[in-house]
């Protein structure tokens, strides 16, 4: 076993950290208030190649391994978790279906565009199908040359800016085996991009609803054969969860950063509060939990990079990292006292941002379901 990062990983992480601090940090409060990413920042992110991180070089991407990609997401989330999820959704669930299951023609047509910064989104969730993703009711009816898709999707991250929508829709009534996957372009007739959700946090990232009314999608834009859409969605989420785990690690690290810094600065009872055991205990628990969760995420990423099964470990990593990050945000805010409740301090935003990590790409309850199924399978049940 080897617990060190490679030199190129260290360098990459540092480059991203510097970019995030220099270019993103000054905009965080504004983006949080306005509920949208800054336009110029989005252009810079595209130019820097963040939308091509996980794409192979021959499609014009950076070709990062999962672990290094995770570190990038962590460093972004350490500054702005909304920007981090925008990039993570594009590089994982938004593009993975085409990369892993798409025809060669589909890959050649779309992956270079995505790697170049045309943004991808992932549309599974519906008003009546959240944790029960297989309960989705959007339909794709076969017509001449393709399909007509009808239905409603919600909580589509990146949808406000997206050029491409990977949509799961029913081609038959055969439960989860009746679901197929399609790639729809933004200017498809019958596609209505709804308003952005007004969210508690993660406000630099957008989530929209999408109405599809007889939206035509050509046959060649079906991803893989009919009936494997649910499998595609679930395997995309296995990878996506590693990204969310690293996003939560970035938030937790940010909380530890500001918590420790504030504790050293703030004096009460004639000394920095960092000298009080109650505050030290908070910091010690944050640091320990962070390190444990980080190792779980690193292992999940390593398994994926080794080409080994990683679904269970991805679920464990997401569960551990997001629950841990929630506790870290709570402790960091607590260390700040009344100031932590004010929008003058970053920790107030971290507290709101972190909450959704326990919900999206599978709630904590769904992760437990995945883990339990794996454990029971190992015991033959």
């Amino acid at each position, binding site marked *: 076993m080897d617990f060190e990062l490679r030199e190129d990983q260290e360098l990459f992480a540092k480059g991203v950290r510097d970019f995030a601090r220099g270019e993103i940090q000054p905009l965080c409060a504004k983006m949080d208030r306005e509920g949208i990413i800054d336009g110029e920042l989005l252009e810079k992110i595209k130019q820097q190649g963040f939308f091509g991180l996980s794409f192979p070089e021959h499609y014009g991407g950076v070709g990062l391994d999962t672990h290094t990609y995770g570190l990038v997401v962590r460093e972004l989330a350490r500054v702005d978790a909304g920007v981090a999820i925008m990039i993570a959704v594009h590089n994982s669930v938004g593009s993975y279906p085409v990369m892993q299951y798409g025809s060669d023609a589909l890959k050649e047509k779309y992956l270079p565009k995505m790697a170049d910064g045309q943004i991808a989104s992932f549309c599974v969730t519906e008003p009546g199908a959240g944790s029960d993703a297989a309960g989705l009711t959007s339909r794709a009816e076969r017509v001449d040359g393709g399909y007509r898709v009808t239905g409603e999707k919600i909580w589509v991250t990146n949808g406000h800016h997206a050029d491409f929508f990977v949509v799961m829709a029913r081609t038959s009534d055969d439960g989860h085996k009746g679901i197929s996957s399609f790639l729809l372009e933004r200017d498809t007739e019958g596609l209505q991009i709804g308003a952005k959700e007004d*969210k508690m946090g993660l406000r630099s990232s957008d989530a929209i609803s999408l109405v599809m009314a007889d939206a035509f999608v050509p046959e060649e834009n079906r991803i893989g054969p009919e009936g494997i859409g649910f499998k595609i969605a679930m395997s995309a989420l296995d990878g996506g969860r590693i990204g969310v785990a690293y996003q939560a690690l970035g938030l937790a690290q940010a909380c530890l950063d500001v918590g420790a810094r504030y504790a050293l600065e703030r004096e009460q009872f004639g000394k920095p509060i960092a000298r009080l055991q109650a505050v030290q205990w908070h910091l010690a628990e944050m640091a320990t939990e962070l390190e444990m969760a980080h190792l779980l995420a690193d292992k999940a990423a390593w398994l994926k990079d080794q080409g080994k099964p990683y679904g269970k470990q991805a679920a464990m990593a997401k569960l551990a990292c997001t629950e841990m990050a929630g506790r870290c945000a709570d402790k960091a805010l*607590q260390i700040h*006292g009344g100031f932590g409740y004010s929008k003058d301090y970053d920790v107030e935003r971290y507290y709101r941002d972190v909450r959704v990590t326990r919900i999206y790409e599978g709630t904590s309850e769904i992760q437990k379901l995945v883990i339990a199924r794996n454990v029971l399978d190992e015991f033959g049940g």
Partner: protein
Amino acid sequence: MKFDLSSEQELIRKTAREFAEKEITPHAARWDQNEEFPAETVKKLGELGFMGIAVPEQWGGAGMDNLSYILAVEEISRACGSVGVIMSVNNSLACWPLQAFGTDAQKEEWLEPLASGQKLGAYCLSEPQAGTDAAAQKTTANPDGDGWVLNGTKNFITNGAHADTFIVFAMTDLTKGHKGISAFVVDAHAPGVAVAHTEHKMGIRASDTAQITLDDVKLRGDQLLGEIKDGFKIAMQTLDGGRIGIAAKALGIAQASIDHSIAYAKERSQFGRPIAQFQAIQFKIAEMTLRTEAARLLTYRAAAVKDQGRRHSNESALAKLAASTASVYCSEEAVQIFGGNGYSKEYPVEKLMRDAKICDIYEGTNEVQKMVISATALA
């Protein structure tokens, strides 16, 4: 021991619940969004007698007991935590020290308008450098003829920008530490009193939180509250009562979290059945109910001990710690039960979560409550 409420207590709870449903629930989301202080509603609370519930009728109050007051705050906070804290601060932190330490003349001049809801009160203890370490006061009160001159800055003052009357703590002897603090009652509209700014907060956004500057504020001699240098004792005893109010506010948020969770879990179907039929959700509801019910008993006990005229620092600290923790826990679980919808401002639970967190902080952080509880236990 008995655990039932008197008919008077049942009545105030019912009155508060009906008022909250009619006058608060329909507006709470808008007040939150716009950081709007609900001035009209506060006026109506005054007319109901809710701004001085445990103050004797002789001094403009409703003349009821502390448990009645707690029940009212709990019900009001179930609809909106901001309104709960506005009420709690006026009752516990402004009326009570006047009632307990004021002369009859002071009660007539200052308490009656506050208890009857004609005026609004605030409590000015915290300073930028004196939070948990409340004794580290830098505000000074210097003798000036028969009166005093106040100078200093007070921080995180609930009701600060809307209040008419302040209870202000200041050093009358800088060499004596917490034994050099005195308490004063101050007209918020007097020359030299100013609102430096109001805070933009995560939650309880309908409640205003202001920084107040005191610049050569002249006071008459009879604006000293209690004995000179008794200020720290007055401040701490006042907070002993205030913490029961905050515990009640937290209980209201915890109960609202449970109420919304149950309604949603019964209505929301996944995997072909209401999610209320899944153990994962059932056990969350059970845990939320347990923590809230336990905290409620501690809170009612603290109020009952206060009603008996006994010292209740420890009971209050236990109540506030348990209730605040329960409210944060329950509101987080409510968001989780709602899933993605819980994270959206279209549903009420994300506000509950934002409103709950401050309960862990104000009127003594959880850590301060633990200091009180452990000091009592170790004594």
